[in-house]
């Protein structure tokens, strides 16, 4: 989108930017930024074999932030006129006014000149959605419907939803750095309901990535349809597993939700700075078994959680959180990095211009270990193999987390005995991390439509994981 002139598409010039930032920091703020965003998204959905509903959303606006003494004021507006931007700046500046953080030290910097910093494009797109005809989207969702029905006659209903979006952002910081970024994203969900006698089951698969319409291939249709139908067939056979504590094997890929909940959130630096995380004050100590090396990365090309530049204008990066069981870094934004005296980790993110940034995960991956998958399954006498996941949640202070298994297998004597479904798994993050005892050699980065919610803000994330064994988790089954 860099067309030469700064923040071109927003019709906001450098002079207005300077005045806005000066006003935002006018009552003692130390630093801040203006975040301009235009996001355009299109969604089409199919039911009963026909694409009969679409939506299209355009959002355009700015957020102005002033930071003083680790506190912030934030104001957003959808009106980009100089008057509205100055009004937002005034509102944000109150964090350091009377009753606020007091008169802070003199501002570190005021932008005299804006310098545009280069931004790498990690998610190149060959066929941008904004130029793709609507028929391209309609054809894909129709093909999915046809293929799923052809593969499995017990399917009675198919719904497909395809959403694509492009977010264009420009960030102007009080230290004069300016970055511009284009962030494509596509999310595809296919759900089917099948009937077998009196039994009705529902299966769902998703695909999320930072790609263009080139990804809407027949190979994608084939892959998702096959996975969906395989899931439905297993669900028809599935039972509820027993209740209680059992060993659990987590399949490669979307099992990463365990890491996301059990440890990822607890390592977001804001929770530690505020003292609400169970990992507060444990830097450089052993928090997991030596088999655990955990990386959070925005650098995997076209991945759902890929980030060219973060929402404070820091370059995309990968962060080693845990190295062989030792806690090495939190995920930082500018406020927490200043608090801890470290460099930001490129993980400040926000849902949109309406929201201030916080430390967030990007794509959280456990590094592969030495064990073949079969060996890990064989090692379990009686337990659960968790394969397809729904949602998860954590209490970051107590460390207790849960995640929902839509489909898995019951293991008897090292063999997959029968499929199981609809079971919530509960554990305690630090205890589970310390207990992971077998790590597979089959790391897989999942390509689902994962989004992470925090403080009312939702952002796209990714996760990667090899097959892993946890000796004991509480299985929310039925006895």
């Amino acid at each position, binding site marked *: 989108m860099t067309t030469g002139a700064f923040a071109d598409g927003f019709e906001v010039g450098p002079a207005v930017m300077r005045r806005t930032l000066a006003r935002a920091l006018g009552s003692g703020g130390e630093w801040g930024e203006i975040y301009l965003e*235009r996001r355009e998204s299109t969604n089409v959905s199919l*039911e009963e074999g026909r*694409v*009969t*509903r*679409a*939506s*299209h*959303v*355009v959002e*355009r*606006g700015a957020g102005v932030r002033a930071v003083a003494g680790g506190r*912030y*004021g*934030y*104001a957003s507006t*959808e*009106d980009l006129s100089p008057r509205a931007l100055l009004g937002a700046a005034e*509102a944000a500046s*109150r*964090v350091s006014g009377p*009753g606020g953080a007091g008169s802070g030290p003199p501002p570190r910097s005021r932008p005299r000149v804006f310098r545009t910093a280069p931004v790498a494009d990690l998610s190149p797109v060959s066929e941008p959605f904004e130029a793709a005809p*609507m*028929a391209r989207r309609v054809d894909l969702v129709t093909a999915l419907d046809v293929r799923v029905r052809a593969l499995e006659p017990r399917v*009675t*209903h198919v*719904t497909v939803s395809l959403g694509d979006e492009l977010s264009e952002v420009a960030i102007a910081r009080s230290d004069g750095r300016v970055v511009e970024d284009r962030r494509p994203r596509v999310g595809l969900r296919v*759900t089917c*309901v099948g*009937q077998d006698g009196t039994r*009705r*089951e*529902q299966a769902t698969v998703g695909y999320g990535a930072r790609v263009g319409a080139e990804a809407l291939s027949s190979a994608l249709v084939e892959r998702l349809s096959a996975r969906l139908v395989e899931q439905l067939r297993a669900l028809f056979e599935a039972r509820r597993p027993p*209740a*209680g504590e059992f060993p659990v094997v987590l399949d490669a890929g979307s099992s990463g939700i365990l890491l996301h*909940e059990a440890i990822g959130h607890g390592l977001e630096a804001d929770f530690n700075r505020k*003292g*609400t*995380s*169970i990992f507060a004050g*444990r830097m450089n100590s052993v928090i997991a078994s030596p088999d655990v090396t955990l990386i959070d990365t925005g650098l995997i090309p076209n991945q759902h959680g890929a980030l060219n530049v973060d929402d404070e204008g820091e370059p995309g990066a990968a962060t080693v959180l845990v190295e062989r069981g030792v806690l090495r870094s939190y995920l930082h934004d500018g406020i927490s990095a200043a608090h801890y005296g470290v460099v930001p980790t490129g993980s400040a993110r926000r849902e949109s211009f*309406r929201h201030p940034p916080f430390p967030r995960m990007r794509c959280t991956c456990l590094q592969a270990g030495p064990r073949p998958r079969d060996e890990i399954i064989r090692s379990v006498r009686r337990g659960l193999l968790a394969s397809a996941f729904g949602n998860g*949640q*954590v*209490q970051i*202070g*107590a*460390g*207790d987390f*849960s995640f*929902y298994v839509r489909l898995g297998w019951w293991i008897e004597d090292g063999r997959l005995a029968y499929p199981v*479904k609809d079971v*919530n798994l*509960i554990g305690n993050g*630090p205890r589970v991390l310390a207990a992971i005892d077998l790590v597979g050699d089959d790391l897989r980065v999942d390509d689902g439509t994962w989004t992470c919610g925090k403080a009312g803000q939702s952002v796209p994330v990714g996760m990667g994981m090899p097959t892993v064994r946890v000796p004991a988790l*509480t*299985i*929310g*089954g039925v*006895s």
Partner: protein
Amino acid sequence: MRTSRIPASLRRVAERTLSEASSRGADATAVAVKRSWQRSVEARDGNLDEIEESISNTLTIRLFHHERYGVFQTSDLRPAAISRFLERAFDVVAALEADPLRALPGPALYRGATRLDLELQDPLPPLELDELLRRVAAIEQAARGAAERVDVATVASGVSERRSCALRLHSDGFRAASEASVLHQWCSVTLRDTEERRPLDHAVDGATWRDRLEPPEAVGLRAMRRARQRLGASSLATGRMPVVVEARAAVRLVDALLDALSGPALAQRRSFLVGRLGQRVASGHLTLHDDPHVPGGLGSRRHDAEGMAAHPRTLIDHGVLTGLLLDTYHARKLGQAPSSGSVSNAVLVPGSRDLGGLLCAVGEGLLVTGFLGGNVNATTGDFSLGVVGSEVREGVVSSAVAGANLSGNLLELFGHLVEAGNDPLRTSAMRIPSLRFCDVQVSGT
């Protein structure tokens, strides 16, 4: 009807958009403009932490064109941008397949909206920043004052206020203006426990008018009491037992029932309540109303999202399913009368005893004060939900429980509902009391 609060510029946006859509040949159009303003402050450990303020203006268009339908929304309200946006909207619907069931509700369904004052807009002006700061300080002070001897890691408190006004215009003559205000105050308390655990709990209060908020001190006090109850949590043995689900958590269970009553779920057979109208779906202790006319109710409304006049009705009557959540489209699809596609205020008819009375009736069992993750399979009704709560011993709250889970099927669970409490939430559109169930599957160690 009062349209005074809608700025004239925004009203003109709505009127121009409606006429432009008609002149481009739309069969029918529904236009809504909404303006909202919000301010919130959050403090932590005696210091102001965050101030946020936002102004939002959005235009939403529901377009019906040649039996095709789309929903369009933009916050870019410059006249040229709106024209481009409309052009795009017509392009998008043109690519769809025809669906003759898509239509506006029509004048007959708009008529008969209540003329009662629903008390949705605070007559007082928004709270000043100073007052917000005073309240967050009072919340925290009250929380710390109730700490007794526990080790407090951190206390956060917040207050927010939102004001909005909206104008809706349909091409078949519907016109409605609305205004709303909502205030929230909250407190979250993190304590230090053994094993480096830092249990957290919180309290929330919300109302449409500031005079209906609790004193801020009550919120802080409740948060600290709740957090103290989280200390020393241990696991629970697996088994079947009586369970009381506290009002704020019971909302999630009732939500799952409501999801299964929605038109899209029923039409796609993604609902365990398909074909259950007129049948028993819960014990006789469950009566659930959709009441859009509760004065000051956070879900109260004169018209629903489609413009249909909102009327009180009963969804579940002494355990028998009597109503579905059908917008006009899904009603046509299912060959039934439309009601509304969503609930306004979900009012579960309360019983006579408070939470203490419910616990007393349980004797030995589990009190659920919150859910931790988990999910409900809407197609089958199977659920498995992580729980936060406490053991109940000899009819009173005993030690905190961690790592436990409830599972079963919602039909079975609501069949085991034996009592509703007298403590419905007033700070939410889900006016649900605490619920007592017998014989529930609990997983622990």
